[in-house]
């Protein structure tokens, strides 16, 4: 044979493929509980051959490949499957069992005691961030919206979240992991203050009404965990004008979308609003606030993010109210406050399985309070027996909080977390009595904590979270050890049951310190059981709880100042709560209903014995309705809040028995409030709008219903006076415009 012929033969042989080696591969794919899985992609690796399973999980195809080949099966929600096959022309029948992939989307989530509003696509989240700002009764305040959820009380005479029979001080707020001191503007007698932070800077809100994670501590009742936004979508400028305030801000997103910075300034002055809407108080200085904030966010790597948020505020107000102690005279109150808050946080993935989170925050708060009596001509007077009504209280607070959390991912969604927290608080208080005698005091407390927590996904439907927290307080010179445990079991699609247990410690409030006797931690033990069903835009949850309080602080008066005496206080709270939300039944109408039943008693501070405190109503309910009217480009929101009459009482000191006793007791009338808000969004439907104005009209207590929060007593306890809202009805009108800094050309040029 000539070489050339040989070569032809060889090349022909190379090109020759036996046509007979066709193999039929068929079978069935099953998943959980041997149920067939449809839509599974079956393929022979590196070939075109394969099939997709039908509704019975069956597949069948013919392949021309021969020899050892890898068969792959993939489907959304399942772990990829592969198997080596020997293709020799003989039909092959397979039974493939796919393992469910544990994903955050489908897995059971521990929800006992928590309400989550976040942009994470979690099945358990029953609220989204937008819900917070569009709740009619919220007045644009985060806590206002949370008060429409079960568990929180509608207390109108002071700020804060009163959760399940707890005081406002039993709720702590955290931003990006670290504790926030002075979350609200400084307290003013009988007037609830707003929270300092705009809801728009947060992308996630977790409101825990009990049983929260070991990562957080020093809160007997509740933790409000806020997560600030990462990089903004684009550069924007914003402008807001309302009857109360004016503000302007700018956010700049770098071209490479890796970093951003922003700053804003706002001035609020209630003089105009108070001129129109008559207030109960007579303001010699209407509340005025300067607020400024600045931020930067840097994407330090594919998974790393460094964020800074800084806030500064300065405010002043002064008013007089007719004095209850002496007719014809007035009580004057004034407060000046300056507050700085700085928060720096960093998170990064270290390797494939480790994550680290680091946060530091610093607060500097300064309050100058002055009180005295005035006569009809607004001249300062001092009346016999009421000298103590003149005083000055200057407090300077310096607070620092640092926290580090390490997170190690385990198999599936399981994870192990541990870390440490350090909290420094220093208060310099200078109380000056009517004679000008100063009583300076200084208080410093260092709380050091370590904690560890494990998320254990036993299966896709059963998860446990177990944690342990240890704290040391320098002021108490004591340690505590707080175990936490929760379990969740998925009963079916969107339906789950969870339980939670935990011990929670908190230092005695600093306002009652220093104490003459050594004190210890106050303690609460939570037991919670929950049922939740979130299906098809409808959410239902029911929760029962029992909370036991031990070592609450009892107080007495030393130099006119309420001071902690011992830890002999105690109490408990039990109740049942329901939440129902429905976005489905009526088109473009969204509503939720919450109801809480609370049975609580406690003996603390100067209480003679255990009673239901004045911040706890037996029945609390809310109905929130949101309707979007497309043709008007309007969002119509309304909310109805109800609370059964809360108890009121006056406690007097009986020198004869040297005991505290109730001099008067009763219940205030039921509380009703209907609020209404319209948001008008004229930019909707405009192509490439340059600006996004939102007009807001908000009316609280639209039916002008008389609301009574409680009673205020004269020094001698003989006269009492209702504590009511500063005005019956309040109207808010404003326009907020954000300008998208148009950079579509830039985007385009980068894309090309």
């Amino acid at each position, binding site marked *: 044979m000539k070489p050339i012929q040989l070569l032809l033969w060889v090349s022909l042989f190379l090109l020759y493929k036996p046509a007979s080696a066709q193999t039929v591969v068929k079978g069935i794919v099953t998943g959980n509980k041997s149920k067939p899985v449809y839509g599974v*992609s079956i393929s022979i690796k590196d*070939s075109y051959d394969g099939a997709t399973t039908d509704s019975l999980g069956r597949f069948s195809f013919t392949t021309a490949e021969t020899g050892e080949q890898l068969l792959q099966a993939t489907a959304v929600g399942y772990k990829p499957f592969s198997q080596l096959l020997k293709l020799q022309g003989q039909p092959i029948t397979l039974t493939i069992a796919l393992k469910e992939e544990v994903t955050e989307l489908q897995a059971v989530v521990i929800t006992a005691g928590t309400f989550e509003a976040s942009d994470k696509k979690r099945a358990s989240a029953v609220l989204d961030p937008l819900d917070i700002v569009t709740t009619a009764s919220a007045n644009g305040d985060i806590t206002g919206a949370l008060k429409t959820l079960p568990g929180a009380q509608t207390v109108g005479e002071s700020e804060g979240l009163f959760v399940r029979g707890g005081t406002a001080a039993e709720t702590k707020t955290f931003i990006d992991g670290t504790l926030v001191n002075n979350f609200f503007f400084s307290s003013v007698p009988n007037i609830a203050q707003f929270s300092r932070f705009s809801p728009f800077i947060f992308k996630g809100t977790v409101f825990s009404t009990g049983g929260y994670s070991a990562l957080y501590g020093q809160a007997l009742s509740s933790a409000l965990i806020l997560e600030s936004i990462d990089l903004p979508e684009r550069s924007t400028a914003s402008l807001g004008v309302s009857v109360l305030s004016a503000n302007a801000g700018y956010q700049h997103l770098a071209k490479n979308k890796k970093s951003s910075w922003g700053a804003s300034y706002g001035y609020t002055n209630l003089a105009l609003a108070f001129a129109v809407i008559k207030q109960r108080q007579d303001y010699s200085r209407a509340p005025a606030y300067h607020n400024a904030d600045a931020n930067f966010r840097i994407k330090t790597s594919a998974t790393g993010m460094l964020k800074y948020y800084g806030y500064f505020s300065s405010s002043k107000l002064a008013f007089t109210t007719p004095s209850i102690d002496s007719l014809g005279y007035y009580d004057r109150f004034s407060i000046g406050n300056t507050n700085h808050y700085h928060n720096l946080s960093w998170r990064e993935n270290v390797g494939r399985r480790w994550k680290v989170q680091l946060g530091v925050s610093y607060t500097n708060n300064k309050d100058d309070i002055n009180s005295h009596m005035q006569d009809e001509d607004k001249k300062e007077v001092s009346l016999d027996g009421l000298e103590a009504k003149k005083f000055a209280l200057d407090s300077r607070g310096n607070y620092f909080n640092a926290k580090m959390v390490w997170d190690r991912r385990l198999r599936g969604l399981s994870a192990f977390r541990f870390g440490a927290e350090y909290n420094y608080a220093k208060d310099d208080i200078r109380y000056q009595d009517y004679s000008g005698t100063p009583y300076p005091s200084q208080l410093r407390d260092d709380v050091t904590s370590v904690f560890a927590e494990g998320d254990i996904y036993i299966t896709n439907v059963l998860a446990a979270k177990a944690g342990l927290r240890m704290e040391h307080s320098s002021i108490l010179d004591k340690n505590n050890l707080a175990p936490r445990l929760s379990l969740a079991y998925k009963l079916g699609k969107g339906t789950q049951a969870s339980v939670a247990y935990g011990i929670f410690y908190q230092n005695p409030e600093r306002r009652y310190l220093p104490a003459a006797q050594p004190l210890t931690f106050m303690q609460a033990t939570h037991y919670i059981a929950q049922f939740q069903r979130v299906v098809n835009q409808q959410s239902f949850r029911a929760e029962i709880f029992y909370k036991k309080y031990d070592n609450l602080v009892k107080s007495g008066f030393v130099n006119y100042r309420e001071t902690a005496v011992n830890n002999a206080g105690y109490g408990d709270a039990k109740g049942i709560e329901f939440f129902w939300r429905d976005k489905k039944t009526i088109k473009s109408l969204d509503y939720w209903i919450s109801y809480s039943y609370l049975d609580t008693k406690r003996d603390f501070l100067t209480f003679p014995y255990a009673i239901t405190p004045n911040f706890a109503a037996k029945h609390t309910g809310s109905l929130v309705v949101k309707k979007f009217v497309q043709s008007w480009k309007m969002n119509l929101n309304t909310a109805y809040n109800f609370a059964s009459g809360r108890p009121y009482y006056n406690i007097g000191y009986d020198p004869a028995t040297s005991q505290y006793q109730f001099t008067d007791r009763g219940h205030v009338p039921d509380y009703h409030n209907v609020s209404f808000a319209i948001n008008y969004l004229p930019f909707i439907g405009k192509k490439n709008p340059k600006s996004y104005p939102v007009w807001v009209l908000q009316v609280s207590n639209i039916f002008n219903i008389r609301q009574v929060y409680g009673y205020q007593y004269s020094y001698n306890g003989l006269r009492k006076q209702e504590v009511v809202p500063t005005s019956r009805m309040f109207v808010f009108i404003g326009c907020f415009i954000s300008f998208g800094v148009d950079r579509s050309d830039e985007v385009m040029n980068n894309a090309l």
Partner: protein
Amino acid sequence: MKKVLFLTLLLSAVLAGQSQSDKFKKAMEQWVPVFDTTYSADGFLTLSNTFQRIADAEKNQWLPYYYAALTQVNAGYMISGPAGGAADKTDPIADKAEQLLNKAAELAKDNSEIFCVRKMIATLRMTADPMNRYMTYGPAAEAALTTAKKLNPDNPRVYLLEGQDKFYTPEQYGGSKTEAKKLFETAISKFDVYKPESNIHPHWGMAQLKYFMAQMQ
């Protein structure tokens, strides 16, 4: 002799390569027309799997990845319907479509057709939860479509998608049936002169246009 040997080897290499690309072409010719006759979510998902197999075997062809993404996003539309609000079902599909489309984009940069599908994915995401997402995915969809138009002003699908938006958007939001009709007519006129690069390159759209024009009557 060496020459002969070289030529033979070259010939066989070319033949082998030819047969590979023949196989690709044949497979694509078989499956691309199926797109025009698929009307169900399951059908689209099955077809997407088929294109994905071809894509993963070939690795260097953008077309199968493009079709895999296109069929995936169409399945998403079938599941969500015009009312939307099924984020839990359509988000995983949008994720998958995006993943496939990114692979196509790596192989064919600055391709008008790919930006069209990008627009479709953004719109699918937006319809799932318009209240919370229109600020994000509305502009994203628009930017993708503008880029698609810039890259190839003669691509009829750009005008089809633009018209579709106008058609489905309520009037108070800037929708307009008359404007939609104009855009559909532009798309039809573009189709009249449109020559796909080959019979496996994107050519879909005429059937949809006929459907919308029929709705106008």
